[in-house]
């Protein structure tokens, strides 16, 4: 038995799944209550009359971290940034205090200039004087050598509640994003840990010791303990839940376009051979670009309730929603009115819907039916042109080898998987526009909770081995170890997979759920003068994201 709970902006969905069968669901509107209270009440209701000892895990998608950032309910952070030579650094000042320190590590991870201990000491005093309890420490190229970050943390001592070190968050090279990610991680640390403390306490009080996982923006989960250290990973899990739900309800192993068409917006996602397409570096939140791995998603201001008007003898839809559809008492004609007027949807006041379409038809000098069809056709065209633009961008992502340039695989959707209110009505229109088969599930009301419930634990690793300097580094894992001169790419692959496995099992993943894969690798001869002096080996691996088990629907 597994439990999934998704807290969205307006509703909380919950589901219990046993052997692929949905055995209980819940859907409640959000009230103004505290996030923890809302979740706990929903969970209690969902689990009432259930034998909680049979629950293998609870997967939770929450807006705790997202809300803290968006609503500015964050803890003040003292930032210590070692920016070294390169770009000017003023734009990195994101903390409540920002101290730019000397010292420098280069692209190979060599310490070029040592830390100035006096500087760290005075920074520490400054932070204490200003009452800061939370810090973040980020040095340029700390993914290659995190000694300075670790040393600074040690020198800061025990005066602080929490210190985030940049290298622990991601193995990806991007210093500004590492700075912003570390800042956000530190800033929401307190909020997230209060939430997690409440959950743990409530479960203990109820005598439950079920493993609890938190959904991440990449559509996978992380253990609660890991999330306590890296709450940044739990931001923006809402779209990930809906995306995973869509995948649970409509399985595919092909390239696919996924659309979640709601009242106000349409969210667009893609699958490559049935596997989620990710943002290239990380997701953006509240205008901070981060290194948090996330499902690629784009939101358009276009949905069933978008306002429709005529401009220059053409139909314009959205991006605003002015209210509910005209047929439901709203102020403006909407695509939903077009569906109701044509008899494709049966709710609301059809007379009103027809009146709304007629108001447009008069300006366009068309019949009511033609106008309504025109509205839906325009909606389909708008989605098509946005998707084409996204595909062009995705398929022109930079490549770095001749092989990739000549042979790189292009994303080419073979089907469309669709959810949302207008899905059924729009399906034939989209099929025609895209010339692709369209699929939609019968029931999608609790898709997000299903997505959360069935999400797998995910994790990735970036590993660099430099056999000339005889060092292997995997920053996120705090690994910096000696390797032999004869260390090979095969050794690097093995080590990467091993570290992934250890971490996943440590977090509570089941052995048979861990499917690892190498996602990037390269090997370079390092030459000094005219002699090969070592190899530079780079391996990226991940636990393949996806769903645990199948849903019987």
């Amino acid at each position, binding site marked *: 038995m597994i439990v999934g709970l998704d807290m969205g902006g307006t509703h909380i969905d919950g589901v219990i799944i046993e052997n692929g069968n949905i055995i209980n669901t819940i859907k409640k509107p959000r009230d103004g209550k505290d996030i923890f209270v809302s979740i706990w009440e929903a969970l209690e209701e969902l689990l009432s009359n259930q034998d909680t000892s049979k629950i293998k895990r609870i997967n939770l998608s929450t807006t705790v971290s997202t809300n803290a950032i968006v609503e500015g309910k964050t803890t003040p952070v003292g930032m210590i940034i070692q*920016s070294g*030579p*390169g*770009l*000017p*650094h003023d*734009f990195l000042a994101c903390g409540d205090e920002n101290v730019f320190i000397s010292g*420098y590590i*280069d*692209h*190979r991870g*060599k310490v*070029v*200039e040592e830390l100035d201990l006096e500087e760290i000491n005075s920074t520490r005093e400054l932070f204490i004087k200003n009452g800061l309890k939370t810090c973040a420490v980020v040095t*340029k*190229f700390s993914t290659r050598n995190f000694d300075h970050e670790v040393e600074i943390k040690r020198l800061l001592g025990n005066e602080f509640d929490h210190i985030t070190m940049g290298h622990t968050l991601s193995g*990806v*090279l*991007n*210093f*500004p*994003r590492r700075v912003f990610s570390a800042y956000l991680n530190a800033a929401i640390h307190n909020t997230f840990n209060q939430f997690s403390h409440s959950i743990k306490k409530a479960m203990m009080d109820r005598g439950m010791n079920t493993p609890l996982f938190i959904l991440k923006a990449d559509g996978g989960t992380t253990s609660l303990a890991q999330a306590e250290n890296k709450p940044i990973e739990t931001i923006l899990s809402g779209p990930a839940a809906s995306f995973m739900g869509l995948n649970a309800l409509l399985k595919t192993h092909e390239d696919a376009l996924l659309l979640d068409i709601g009242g106000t917006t349409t969210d667009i996602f893609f699958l490559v051979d049935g596997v989620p397409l990710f943002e290239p*570096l990380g997701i953006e939140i509240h205008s901070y*670009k981060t290194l948090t791995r996330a499902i690629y998603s784009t939101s358009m201001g276009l949905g069933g309730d978008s306002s429709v008007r005529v401009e220059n003898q053409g139909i314009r839809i959205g991006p605003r929603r002015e209210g509910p559809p005209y047929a439901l008492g709203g102020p403006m004609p909407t695509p939903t009115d077009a569906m109701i007027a044509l008899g494709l949807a049966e709710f609301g006041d059809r007379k009103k819907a027809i009146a709304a379409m007629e108001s447009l038809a008069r300006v366009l000098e068309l019949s009511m039916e033609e106008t309504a069809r025109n509205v839906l056709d325009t909606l389909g065209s708008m989605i098509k042109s946005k998707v084409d633009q996204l595909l062009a961008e995705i398929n*022109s992502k*930079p*490549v*770095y*080898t*001749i*092989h990739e*340039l*000549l042979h790189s695989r292009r994303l080419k959707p073979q089907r469309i998987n669709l959810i949302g209110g207008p899905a059924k009505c729009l399906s034939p229109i989209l099929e025609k526009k895209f010339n692709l088969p369209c699929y939609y599930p019968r029931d999608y009301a609790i898709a997000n909770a299903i997505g959360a419930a069935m999400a797998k634990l995910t994790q990735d690793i970036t590993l660099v081995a430099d056999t000339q300097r005889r060092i292997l580094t995997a920053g996120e894992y705090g690994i910096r170890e000696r390797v032999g001169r004869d260390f090979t790419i095969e050794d690097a692959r093995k080590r990467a997979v091993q570290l992934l496995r250890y971490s996943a099992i440590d977090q509570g993943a089941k052995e048979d759920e861990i499917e690892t894969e190498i996602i990037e690798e*390269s090997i*370079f*001869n*390092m*030459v000094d*003068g*005219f*002699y*090969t002096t070592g190899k*530079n080996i780079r391996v990226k691996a991940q636990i393949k994201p996806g769903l645990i088990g199948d849903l019987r629907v």
Partner: protein
Amino acid sequence: MIKAKNSLGLVFFPAFDWAISPTHPEREERLLYTRDQLFEEGIADIEGIQFYNPIIAHEKDIQRVHFCVPNVSSRVTDSHLISAGGAIKAMDAVMKGDVDKAFAMVRPPGHHAQRVVYGDRGFCVVNVEAVMLERIRQDYGDLRVAIIDTDCHHGDGTQDIYWNDRNTLFISFHQDGRTLYPGTGFLDEFGGPSAYGYNINIPLPPGTGDEGILYVLDHVVLPILEEYKPDIIINSAGQDNHYTDPLTNMNFSAKGYAMLNSRLNPDIAVLEGGYSIEGALPYVNLGIILAMAGLDFSNVREPDYDEEALQQTKRTTEYIKKLSHLVYSRWQNREKLWAEDIKGKDLISLERQVYYDTDGILENQTQTFISCDKCSGISTIDSQSDGGYHIYAITIPRDGCPRCVDRGHKIYKDISSGNYTNIYLQDRVNDAYLAK
């Protein structure tokens, strides 16, 4: 985040799967640390900076510029077509107005590749800038262009290609050819009969530093550009004047390169040489990007940068001042010098030997430029390589007059194949290429 003042297109194509040979300076690893530096700096997140993939240049693009012997496919590999295609993509983005400026960080380089190509010389087979420029001229019409070659080695290939083209001003400053490959690039290499004065060389003494190179820029290059008024400025951006370069003896720094690009203000830059892959390229490329984007580069600095140690000597400074004066006065007097050296000659022939150091080929060639009142005039090349080829090649220039077009085709038709292994005609007026 930061916003670029000038929008900048970047084609970054390190060709991580291509090398001349495993330990050759032109190998897979060359742009690896540059990539690391650019990624870590978050260049792709800067608003106004846009990355592009290369396109793949066509055989036809190569034939507009080169006579590949015996043909394009036997001399040119995918790596060369992609390197040239990367540059084309960069310049196309500027011409289309997608971006204000563009920088193609591509490899292998190209500025030693001349009109005739028997193989690889100075790590170059295809002249990347020339192939780029001629494709763009084909697509967008003629342009008045200045190519400023800041590689430490003389850009002898580009000089050869634009020798007789006054619509393409070529200025190369480099370490003096008496001390470095390819051994050319002196003041008296001044251009063909129709472009006398439009090929300008500034051979600098070993040990020249930021001060010297920026002096040449301010006192020779910029004043000449001011007068020439090009539509487009291209920087042939070699990075081996750097003080850490293993193949050269200069004292230029990353900040120097950035200042150079900031003042030169090129529309397009194309990476050429530069083999200090760890100590220079990551910083020099970053400096050029920031300068072209109009961003602050004052914080770009190599790990071992020591301003005092890199000071050039007083003697060098004095020498460069005199040299600059001489070069600039020759430019100003170019018409007088033309009257003295060229006027009244119907044709001018140049005989020379070309050595392909990378492939070990020796070529003997005679180029002949036939004067015409109405256009730049046709030119021919009679060339023999020690590999057994003996070719004859005719070029009708872009501005060729009808009489010269006919004449070029007549020579091609009439010439007897008996003496030659291959005969070629490059007709730039009709964008045609014939071989027999």
